[in-house]
């Protein structure tokens, strides 16, 4: 599916600016790090300015690529350089600019910029806003680095940086134990995947001898350099799974919601978690069909699993997190079955509407005094209409509401591809189920949060210095938060039209084909049937969700959840997320604990014994040695020292500080010298 051939136009003109894109945020991060702690606004300004510059540059790069595209082959510019010498050959790093990179650059920069702007309002009253923006800029830099990397090594470095910043930002409120724990969990879990990734990299290096993606026919992605091996593909996919929270490494993502909401929006919905998908898309040529089968299955299972779990969650952000997991699964499914274009298309649309949803959730939380439990919210559409409208747009997009939302088209693409997959039909049906569940739980959430009447407790009023004490009314958020919401909402609606069957711009752009518009494929039977099917699924989910939760039904902490009352066992299972955490607790963690205890025992009883024996032996020897020392060596040594001291004393008499004695010696010496000069030399 990758570009069969490519044209390496190493015109440094476009690429000269390319490396600047991540550099701007990096500089901003450095300066923000150097700023005093209180200067949050300054660092925010820095970060936003840097992001704007990067956005401008990436738009420029994007236009450049668009201008060159449509020639039927993928336009790909690379700029490689030596980094360091290993043994007898060089480790090369490089930048690449191809449609994939360009699209992702624009998306990341755009979302990041919006999130930054949003954060200025959201973090306005946090003392550590400076640190926040420093980390955020650092993240942006690393993420952009991931995008433009043309070497798996550089890719991995930036990848790890992304992980680090994710860790830092999840644990931003490190004084909350839960946040610290979540940060650690995220870091360690992704580390498992990264380990696989790294092994894959090393293996690849040993096989291909280079880590460059594209290097005029010598890059590891280019045909003929090496024949792809399933194992390497799977190892790399391990890394991707870790980053994108695929089964079984998904556990960290829901907990990651402990971080500030903008972080969740930017990192854990739009960009970082998508990096896994991007990785697969980037190294697609390495993916053998068998690897792709694994990718597909993991993706679809994750999608269904996460969607089902999301149904029973009560935390506003956790629901979104689970839906993120499931959407990532969808992307994997798309990659596995449909290819780069399908997955990336959904990635883009998802980035927009999921960021939108998270920011909306943030706005809700911000307006309701940090209340996150949907059972305590409600009826907010009256108080925050803008948030409601934008959030609704995002929700519809996520549900895949027919025709007018981006989610519909991208998800439709995926289902289309899954349906066309010849290995098995199951992924298609499972995907349908996941889509249905998605619509269902989003409707549930909407019903809980925005409809019905407010169940807000009035107790939380005084806690926030920035609202007047006691003003417990939920309130609409400031402009700085609403404008990004609006922009994202519009994108969530219209971004989809970049990839309709009628005008498949994205896929053709990514594959370098010219885009032509004709409505034929839109009404060609197969596609039409599938579209109808997914539309039906989405609408069904929404309506059933409304039937269950809407209709002015009494909801909230007092009442049990309708599903709970209907099937308590299932609901419990789901709300406990299939006990995966517990299972890990019992299996992996317990095993580690047991193993460490075993090692401890071994230490104490086995090695301790050996060590003791050795120690006794040594002590015995030491005694012998000591006797020898004291009565044989020391005797002689002491005498030697004494003699030396005596001699020193005698010599010291010469150094008695008496100038005149020195002078006398000098005079005698002079006399002797003169004598020698007179007679000694005279004779010779």
């Amino acid at each position, binding site marked *: 599916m990758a570009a069969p051939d490519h044209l390496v136009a190493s015109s440094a003109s476009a690429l000269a600016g390319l490396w600047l894109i991540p550099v701007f945020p990096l500089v901003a991060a450095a300066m923000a790090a150097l700023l005093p702690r209180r200067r949050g606004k300054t660092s925010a300004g820095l970060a936003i300015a840097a992001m704007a510059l990067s956005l401008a540059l990436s738009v420029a790069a994007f236009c450049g690529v668009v201008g060159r595209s449509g020639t039927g082959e993928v336009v790909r510019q690379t700029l490689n350089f030596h980094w360091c010498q290993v043994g007898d050959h060089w480790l090369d790093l490089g930048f690449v600019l191809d449609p994939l990179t360009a699209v992702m650059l624009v998306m990341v920069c755009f979302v990041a910029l919006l999130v930054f702007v949003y954060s200025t309002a959201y973090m306005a009253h946090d003392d550590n806003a400076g640190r926040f923006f420093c980390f955020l800029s650092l993240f942006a830099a690393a993420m952009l680095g991931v995008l433009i990397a043309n070497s798996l090594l550089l890719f991995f470095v930036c990848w790890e940086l992304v992980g680090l910043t994710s860790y830092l930002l999840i644990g931003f409120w490190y004084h909350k134990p839960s946040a610290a724990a979540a940060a650690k969990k995220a870091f360690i879990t992704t580390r498992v995947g990264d380990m696989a990734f790294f092994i894959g990299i090393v293996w690849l290096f040993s096989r291909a001898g280079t880590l460059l993606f594209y290097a005029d026919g010598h890059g590891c992605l280019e045909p003929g350099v090496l024949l792809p091996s399933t194992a390497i593909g799977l190892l790399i996919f391990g890394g991707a799974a870790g980053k994108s929270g695929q089964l079984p490494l998904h556990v960290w993502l829901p907990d990651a919601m402990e971080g500030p909401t903008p972080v969740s929006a930017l990192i854990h919905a739009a960009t970082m978690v998508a990096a896994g998908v991007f990785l697969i898309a980037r190294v697609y040529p390495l993916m053998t069909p068998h690897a792709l089968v694994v990718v597909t299955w993991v993706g679809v299972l994750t999608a269904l699993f996460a969607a089902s779990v999301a149904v029973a969650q009560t935390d506003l952000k956790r629901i979104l997190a689970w839906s993120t997991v499931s959407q990532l699964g969808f992307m994997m499914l798309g990659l596995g079955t449909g290819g780069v274009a399908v997955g990336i298309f959904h990635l883009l649309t998802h980035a927009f509407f999921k960021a939108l949803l998270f920011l909306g959730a943030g706005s809700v939380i911000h307006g309701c005094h940090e209340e996150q439990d949907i059972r305590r919210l409600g009826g907010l559409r009256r108080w925050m209409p803008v948030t409601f409208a934008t959030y609704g747009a995002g929700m519809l997009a996520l549900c895949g509401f027919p025709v007018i939302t981006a989610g519909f088209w991208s998800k439709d693409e995926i289902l289309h591809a899954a349906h066309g997959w010849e290995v098995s039909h199951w992924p298609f049906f499972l995907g349908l189920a996941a889509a249905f569940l998605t619509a269902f739980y989003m409707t549930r959430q909407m019903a809980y949060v925005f409809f019905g009447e407010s169940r807000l407790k009035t107790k939380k009023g005084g806690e926030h210095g920035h609202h007047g004490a006691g003003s417990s009314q939920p309130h609409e958020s400031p402009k700085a938060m609403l404008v990004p919401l609006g922009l994202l909402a519009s994108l969530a609606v219209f971004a989809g039209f970049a990839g309709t069957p009628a005008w498949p711009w994205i896929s053709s752009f990514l594959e370098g084909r010219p885009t032509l518009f004709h409505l034929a494929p839109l009404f060609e039977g197969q596609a039409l049937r599938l579209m109808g099917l997914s539309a039906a699924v989405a609408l069904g989910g929404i309506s059933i969700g409304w039937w269950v939760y809407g209709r002015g039904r009494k909801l909230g902490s007092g009442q049990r959840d309708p599903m709970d009352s209907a099937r308590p066992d299932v609901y419990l299972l789901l709300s406990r997320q299939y006990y995966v955490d517990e299972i890990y607790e019992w299996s992996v963690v317990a095993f580690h604990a047991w193993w460490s205890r075993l090692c401890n025992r071994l230490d104490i009883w086995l090695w301790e014994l050996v060590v003791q024996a050795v120690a006794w032996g040594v002590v015995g020897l030491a005694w012998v040695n000591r006797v020898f020392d004291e009565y044989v060596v020391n005797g002689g040594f002491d005498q030697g020292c004494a003699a030396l001291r005596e001699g020193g004393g005698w010599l010291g008499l010469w150094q008695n500080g008496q100038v*005149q*004695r020195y002078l*006398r010696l000098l005079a005698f010496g*002079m*006399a002797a010298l*003169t004598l020698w000069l*007179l007679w000694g030399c005279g004779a010779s």
Partner: protein
Amino acid sequence: MTLPFLIFLTLTALVLGGALAAMMLRDLIHSALALAVSLLGLAAVYLTLQAQFAGFAQVLVYVGAVAIVIVFAILLTRGSDPAGQPVFARGWPWGAAAAVAVFGVLAAGILRSPLAGTEPPAGVEAHAAEVGKHLMAEAVLPLEVTGLILTVALIGAAVIALREKVES
């Protein structure tokens, strides 16, 4: 036994007597004065060698300045050591022996030297003008450096002698 030789002998007696006195006398002031006498004699010897300028400079600097400064130092450091102590340091015979040895060696060297008995060229005179010309011509750099040294020494001496006062 020509007249110059007589003059030389008397001056030698003056110089060496003064020097010996300077070194042997117990009273520091006396030794300082004896030093002045000895140096005066030396200046006279310079004159017999037609080195007028050097001789006068010698008198001006040594008798006029150095002797006075030494006297000042003596008066300033007076009473630091109780009187009635031995004049000579411990182990002074060694010092004397060293001095004698040096003299013996030097004298031997001088007597054995081929330069012995060279006749002086006639009509040599160190005119002040000549000396000045040479000072300003080839010896101008040393002259400047000497001036520098003198300045530095002046300041340095002041600083060294002042230090305690500055501290307290």
